[in-house]
């Protein structure tokens, strides 16, 4: 299938189908992640991020991550989100799909502590690699995020091709101190990507269209 035809199948997922977790095995997920790892470019071959794959057996972690998102929304909006979402008929937060996904991929920054031979030689010659020091890594977070965007997008395409659905969640607290319940999170999270088989999708509303093409893309005359 052509790339455009694959990606046009991407839809915003409200809930994944928990009864279909078994349709995406660990081997399947490993294969998709291997393909994305193989094909995603990385500046100077650092790939300064981790991808933590949280499977169907770790609902406890998914619930904790959901709570982090909820608390972050409360902090950002100043609203009592517990009360907001407890009103019957209220649309639940779209990041609620974290709780129903088969696999939750969590992307965090990663400090490179095992340089390859080329990188070591370049440093000896005076080249600076920002991803090789903690201060540099933190300063370069936007660049790392671009690479994460490319990796997750490819994961998305590979999943869609299998008939699975994906989502991207950016509403969470970046402050590492809020992640103490998850022992594997040692550096700043940059993206959450739930994967599964969609059950309910967000309806398209005409009042919420993306900006028109000419407002984003400008051919310089």
């Amino acid at each position, binding site marked *: 299938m052509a790339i455009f035809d694959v990606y046009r199948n991407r839809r915003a997922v409200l809930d994944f189908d928990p009864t279909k977790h078994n349709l995406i095995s660990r081997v399947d997920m490993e294969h998709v992640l291997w393909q994305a790892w193989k094909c995603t*470019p990385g500046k100077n*071959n650092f790939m300064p991020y981790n991808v933590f794959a949280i499977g169907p057996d770790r609902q406890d972690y998914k619930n904790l991550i959901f709570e982090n998102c909820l608390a972050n929304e409360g902090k950002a909006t100043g609203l009592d989100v517990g009360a907001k979402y407890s009103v019957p008929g209220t649309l639940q937060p779209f990041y609620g799909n974290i709780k129903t996904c088969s696999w939750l991929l969590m992307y965090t920054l990663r400090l490179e502590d*095992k340089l390859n031979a080329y990188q070591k030689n370049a440093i000896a010659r005076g080249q600076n690699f920002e991803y090789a020091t903690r201060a540099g890594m933190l300063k370069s977070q936007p660049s790392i995020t671009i690479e*994460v965007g490319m990796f997750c997008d490819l994961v998305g395409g590979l999943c869609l091709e299998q008939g699975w659905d994906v989502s991207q969640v950016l509403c969470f607290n970046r402050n590492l101190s809020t992640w103490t319940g998850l022992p594997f999170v040692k550096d700043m999270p940059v993206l959450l990507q739930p994967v599964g088989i969609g059950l309910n999708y967000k309806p398209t509303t005409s009042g919420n269209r993306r900006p028109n093409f000419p407002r984003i*893309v*400008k051919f*310089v005359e």
Partner: protein
Amino acid sequence: MSVFETYQKRRAVVEFDKNVIIPKGEIETMIARAWKVTPSKNNFMPYSIFVLGPEHQTYKEEIFQLCLSNENRIDGTDTALKYEDQDPFYSNILSCSHLLVFTLRLEDKPNIFQKSAMLRGCKFEATQESTLQSGYSTASLETGMFADILGGLAIENGYDVSHVLCFERNLSCWSNIPFVTRTPILLMPIGKAKRYKIAMGSNRRPNLDRIVNFVS
């Protein structure tokens, strides 16, 4: 061709073939398709994409100089001396058919849904000058997604792409490029490759298990 087969063809480009110009209609279609299928948080798409065609060699040279001066500043090395015998990899900016410059974008025309959410107290970084910069990471992630899809579409059409992150982020350095009025995020040269970077055994990416971890 599968997604994997397409993206496996992506290679690091040292130099593009200046004789191969992507027709404007073709590049427009590829970018329009990427625009159509790239998701965005709250549908803001908080970035602009400026497309520099083959007629804009002067701008490409200016941007190349910004990359050089950035490297000079970061490494403290004399790039003129360093690149006496070889070109920096980002010199593919000079030979590409089209150079895409991604920058931050302020949303000054929120849609109906966004407006009503703002009336209910929601705050969106992309809609205010004072908060726009704090959304730089989100815009970067979405730019990465856009660039990835566009890359796949270009490869599918027989072209090559590159991604350049080594440039001055400081907007004041971009004063000679009049259309760049917000912080740049990514440079993406597109064209038909003439030379690819040779893979070196000593410069491999980190092993899969150093990047991907299955949580037990």
